[in-house]
């Protein structure tokens, strides 16, 4: 290697090589981890399911993509995501950003709203899945609903109880009515089952069949169950009376004429009943069901549930970016607007928002890209039984290519489709970067 003449510029080749040297690592990285996989995926999408290439299938994989119902659901769901999330995130971020300018403790508020960004989407999904549980004893969202509902209408003492024989039937309104005509001197046996041992009211004693008495209607309401089942409708040794249950006596037209409460052995007495035909009933409030919770993770609400959790994460991001834009906004324009007599709403609508437009569009476009690629939160939050309903493109790609499906052809086709969806948005972003620079 001949040394160049001293004090001269390096030759053209030397400059070229220096440039190449600096570019090599970047090109190497991009080539190996971006360009090669992208090109391979595009080519792979025209081949069959298995192997490094498999067999040529033309555009069959793309046909599958648009004809398989769960993949079509994924595309539809992504459309919902794109329609809802970027707009809502930007709007909520804007509201928070403007409001935090005016409240004390703005830093604390901003931190609280921004905090979800510090949690991985997967962890968020797991957390929200627990919060969305239908059982109010497990899910925070439904627990709140239960608290509210219990204030309005509390659950009955025997909410899970069901009649032990068919002679006792649920009437309209939820009361249990004994379909056996009663006359003074009669006996009413109200057997109930499916009462967990820990829900038997305190002080319950062995149930007894009270002796009949002329002029009175007597009866007993009891837990018609002993280990092994026992005989339905018969008061047996080992079966407990249910104390404190309110029992109504209804006349032939269904009107309640007397009410009483059962004793510790479950027995009750309606005294001095005038002659006629009656029915005994256990009032509906005894069986009022506790709040069962909404199925946030069920087929009808799963998509909105996912959207809420996702917006919860990203609202903080939007708020911080928009707040930064607000902070750098020329205040004199706002002052001028106010001096000219504009109301707060007008200032916001006609001055703040237009001046913030570039920032808002950055947030909006970033969110579109994020939402198109959404994967982890759906994977973590939706129960497997609702994947079919909650499916999104990236998730469908993962399941088709890598999970049991093992169909790299269709998987690649989905990836390419997703790539094509993202490109126009990316191009828009790049163009704006260039313009800004």
């Amino acid at each position: 290697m001949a040394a160049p003449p001293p004090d001269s510029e390096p030759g053209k080749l030397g400059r070229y090589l220096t440039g190449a040297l600096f570019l090599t690592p970047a090109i190497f990285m991009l080539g190996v981890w971006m360009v090669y996989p992208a090109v391979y995926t595009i080519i792979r999408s025209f081949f069959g399911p298995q192997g490094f290439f498999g067999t040529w299938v033309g555009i069959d994989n793309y046909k599958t993509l648009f004809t398989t119902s769960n993949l079509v659901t994924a595309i539809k769901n992504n459309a919902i995501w794109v329609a809802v999330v970027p707009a809502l995130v930007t709007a909520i971020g804007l509201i928070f950003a403007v409001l935090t300018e005016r409240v004390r403790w703005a830093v604390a508020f901003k931190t609280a709203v921004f905090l979800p960004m510090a949690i991985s989407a997967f962890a968020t999904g797991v957390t929200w899945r627990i919060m969305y549980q239908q059982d109010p004893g497990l899910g925070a969202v439904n627990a709140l609903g239960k608290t509210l509902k219990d204030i309005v209408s509390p659950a009955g003492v025997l909410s899970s109880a069901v009649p032990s024989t068919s002679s006792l039937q649920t009437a309209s309104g939820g009361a249990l009515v004994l379909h056996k005509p009663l006359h003074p001197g009669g006996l009413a046996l109200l057997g109930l089952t499916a009462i967990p041992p820990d829900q038997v009211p305190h002080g319950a004693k062995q149930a007894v069949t009270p002796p009949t008495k002329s002029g009175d209607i007597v009866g007993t309401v009891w837990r018609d169950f002993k280990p092994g089942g026992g005989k339905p409708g018969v008061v047996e040794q080992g079966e407990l009376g249910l104390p404190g249950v309110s029992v109504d006596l209804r006349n032939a037209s269904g009107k309640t004429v007397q009410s009483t409460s059962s004793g510790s052995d479950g027995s009750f007495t309606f005294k001095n009943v005038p002659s006629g035909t009656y029915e005994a009933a256990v009032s509906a409030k005894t069986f009022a069901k506790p709040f069962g919770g909404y199925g946030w993770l069920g087929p009808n609400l799963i998509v909105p549930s996912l959207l809420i959790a996702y917006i919860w994460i990203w609202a903080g991001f939007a708020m911080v970016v928009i707040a930064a834009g607000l902070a750098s906004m020329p205040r004199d324009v706002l002052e001028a607007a106010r001096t000219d007599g504009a109301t707060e709403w007008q200032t916001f609508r006609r001055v703040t928002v237009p001046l913030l437009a570039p920032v808002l569009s950055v947030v909006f476009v970033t969110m579109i890209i994020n939402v198109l690629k959404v994967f982890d939160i759906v994977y973590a939050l939706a129960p497997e039984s609702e994947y079919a309903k909650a499916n999104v493109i990236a998730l469908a790609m993962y399941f088709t290519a890598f999970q049991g499906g093992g169909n790299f052809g269709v998987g690649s086709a989905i990836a390419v489709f997703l790539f094509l969806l993202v490109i126009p948005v990316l191009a828009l972003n790049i163009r704006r970067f260039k313009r800004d620079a």
Partner: protein
Amino acid sequence: MRKPRVIVPAALAVLVLAVLVATQIASASRTSKSGATAVSGTITFDGIWTASSGQKQFADVIKAFNKLYPKVHVNYKPVGNNLPTVLATAVAGGHPPDMADIAQPGTVKQFATEGKLKPITYATSAINKNFAPAWRQLGTFNGKLYALVFKAANKSLVWYNVPAFKAAGVTAPKTFSQLLKDAQTIKASGTPAYSIGGADGWTLTDLFENIYLRTYGPAKYDALSTHKIKWTDPSVATALKTMAKIIGDTSNIYGGTSGALQYGFNDSVTNAFASPAKAAMVFEADFVGGVITSSTKAKPKTGFNTFTFPSITPGPDAGAVEIAGDLFVTFRDNPAIEAFVKFLASPQAAEAWAKQGGFGTGNHNVPASIYPDPITRASEAPILTAKSVVFDMSDNQPPAFGSTTGQGEWGLFQQFLKNPSDVAGIQAKLEAAAKAAYKK
């Protein structure tokens, strides 16, 4: 100003060297050489067990192997639950490990058909000596022995909450009709009888498979597994109707249908073995025991116990057991690998893990007394003595149909749980999905 010129070629040289070294290493690991007299070499092994789930126990198996073959180094890689993905990618890329454990016979068959696996016919005599013929059959694909079922899980089990059964005054049922009757008694006692983890589709296919096996026996079960019987067959309808007696008894399922669809396998276990009980029984495999001891306070015998999935039609069933298992396969062939595979078929290998629990084997030269506690003995002994064993049906099928979250069998059985009255509809859907998956 001279320096760049020197650096460029030097850097290029380093790069070339690095690439050469890398390929050198790669090819070296592919050809583990063996000595003529003492067997030596390195075996790379990709397994599903991680530090929390059996890596240590498998290390003890390797240790026992190294006592006999000190010069063979087994390099175990704990891949975890992503193993099928990792393996499929490694095989597609042409760099599989020497050995791997695969839980899906469907995948083994696929690899065998593509010629990626090496037969292990050299271990035939060792397997014949220690296992019933049914086990060798499970490892045979396309007429050749490719896999050893090293670890097996008994899937024909029902786990029950002992206090809940006691409160209802029932004992472990022997027949399915008795089970249905007891379930009504349990319901009357105030506890829902069933805890179903329907958010995991495989818990539902397992229930169906046990019902099908107990109704029609192993031969027909295998025929359905391999799609020789269609899913629209009347036998499938009968089994689905039997299944609907359980999953359609919504007021007897903890959380009802919507709850069953939201609770996963783990939830179904913790719900059933909570105190007080939220439900009385769970239909699932031997590994339920591990979940109970690790995430509930229930104690063996007094808190939880297990019984064999009760008989439905006594004739054809003949004490068959459904298992899931780890199939050990080899992607290469050399004396070190041969020695290891033969060792794994021996009782010593199984005992090294079995004495620590959490392990079932079909190796009949392993005494049942090796299991550390009575519950494990009760749940694993049926495998040792089983007259016939069948592999988990959903694992046996093409993965797109049998074992993909949210689609195929798993997804469709979740639909069936939502609407157990639509037997014919679900049969048609199952058949369509099976057809599409088998066509590939």
